């Protein structure tokens, strides 16, 4: 569905005034290659300014790269804009594609004409999405009066009415409560499964990636740092597991042989370890009387942060 080979894009950034200033070349994306198969959901992660949105803009045909080959569904995005975008759907979190002052259904009707969706197909899709996303209660409400969650759902429907093969999602659930987040994720999973829509998801919300994508790509400073399964990212680069111990009384010496002492606060002491938890638990209980023990799994967020900060993967893409 998507093939990107040696993509490179630089920007000229002006510094100082229009007349006196000089300009600096900034490499937004340098030598990025990847491919995405039809029907995949890929999480695309990276801190702000890492090159994420530049990549997306190239893939959607908004930007022309300096060099490299890009093909989306057999087309070069920036060469044949109108044919290309007819097969895309996009939801860019903070921005709506709906007409602000028009009732939602009128916006959708306009999009039907813009995308030239045949009437029966449009009716069918509208019926499906209205049911799945529960659009019914606000189809007659103008976009400006929608809550954030409603607006997101309406925008998702708007992005999918023309049966796109590829869907770009940028922070699709940012700012929503847990229930609303889950409803949208469920919908994304559903259309991915039933319609084989390929999804490229950029987000800061790792929970989202965990729930939706099996594969992640991580970009920082314009280079891909990781491209592979989310599970193996965690196994390989995850930090140690954590043992949180509540002792009967504050131990005079919290240090336990074989365990890394992470911190102590009165009776509560935290240790780091790798592998199975049985042996470390036995050691701790042998050390002093224990009231309670919990094992904390490393968070993927911490893993990603470690990757950004430590350049853990800088040597090569896995």
């Amino acid at each position: 569905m998507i093939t990107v080979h040696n993509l490179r894009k630089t920007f000229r950034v002006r510094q100082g005034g229009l007349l006196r200033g000089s300009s600096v070349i900034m490499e937004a994306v340098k030598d990025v290659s990847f491919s995405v198969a039809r029907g995949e959901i890929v999480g695309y992660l990276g801190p702000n300014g890492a090159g994420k949105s530049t990549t997306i803009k190239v893939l959607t045909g908004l930007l022309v790269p300096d060099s490299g080959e890009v093909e989306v569904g057999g087309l070069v995005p920036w060469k044949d804009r109108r044919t290309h975008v007819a097969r895309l759907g996009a939801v860019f979190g903070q921005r709506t594609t709906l007409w602000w002052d028009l009732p939602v259904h009128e916006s959708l009707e306009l999009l039907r004409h813009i995308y030239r969706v045949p009437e029966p197909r449009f009716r069918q899709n509208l019926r499906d999405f209205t049911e799945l996303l529960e659009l019914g209660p606000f189809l007659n409400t103008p976009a400006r009066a929608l809550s954030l969650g409603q607006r997101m759902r309406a925008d998702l429907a708007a992005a999918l009415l023309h049966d796109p093969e590829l869907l770009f999602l940028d922070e699709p659930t940012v700012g929503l409560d847990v229930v609303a987040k889950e409803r949208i994720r469920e919908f994304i999973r559903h259309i991915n499964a039933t319609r084989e829509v390929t999804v490229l998801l950029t987000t800061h919300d790792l929970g989202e990636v965990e729930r939706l994508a099996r594969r992640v790509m991580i970009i920082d400073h314009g280079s891909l740092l990781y491209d592979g399964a989310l599970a193996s990212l965690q196994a390989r680069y995850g930090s140690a597991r954590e043992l949180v111990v509540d002792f009967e009384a504050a131990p005079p010496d919290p240090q336990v042989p074989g365990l890394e002492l992470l911190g102590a606060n009165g009776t509560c002491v935290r240790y780091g370890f790798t592998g199975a938890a049985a042996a470390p638990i036995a050691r701790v209980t042998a050390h002093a009387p224990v009231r309670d023990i919990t094992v904390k799994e490393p968070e993927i967020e911490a893993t990603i942060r470690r990757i950004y900060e430590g350049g853990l993967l800088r040597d090569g893409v896995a």
Partner: protein
Amino acid sequence: MARPELSPSLPEKEGVAASALYYLRLYYLLLRAQARSQAVYRVSFALDALGSAFITLAEFAAFVLVLPRFGSLSGWTLGEVSLLYGLAELAFVLMDLAFGGFDAPNLSQHVRSGSFNTFLLRPAPLRLQIFGSDFALRRVTRVVLAAGILAYGVMASGVIWTPEAALLLAGSVLGMVAFFGGLSVIGGTLTFWTVESVEAMNVLTYGGRTLISYPMDIYGQFLRKTFTYLIPAAFLSYFPVLHVLGRPLPDGLPMLAAYLSPLVGPLMLAAAFAFWRVGVRHYGGTGT
């Protein structure tokens, strides 16, 4: 459920007439959406409509009050000046209505907020979408006023109402709409690079409009020559009006020059759209 074997891409090999019809219909639907959006804000709509009508009225009132004191303006009676002024005002307001999407503040707002990308992400022609992105109906009061001033001008100046005169004046309006539309497109295109240059463009657009609202012979030799030969604004309304009033064109120009407005205007617009394409390509290079 299997993925429907239905490509949403444009129908292949569509006839020219069919796609023209589709674009017209889409343009109509987009304008209707704009109109419906504005209907939501009734009070502000009414105030805007009154306010913009006031501008035209005040300007026209100025020379209705002043002109009789001098008898005439370089030999132009109030009726004749009204004819010229009405033509220019009508064309300018119609242009403002149709080309609002290309207006620099609108366009730079789209670029900054990212909604310009929304247009680019849709499979309809970009310019059609920009044309359909703004349609300030509140300017309709100005259209009506301008048409009224023009009608007064036609009657008071004693134009003999032949089909030829009607065609000449209609062509003049059309030419001016295209000409000033072109200037507006250029101004809007400049915002792909910088917002600062837009003021300079406004001097041309609004200055040009004011300039051709009055008989050219009130200006000095230099201005007159500049706006005849360098910037061909005199062709737009001044020459056609001279012709319908049965006066000779200056510099011994042939009468043919009075018919050039519907040619000069579209040429300007075509040049502006060529520049627009350069701007859009530049946008594709920087994305900002």
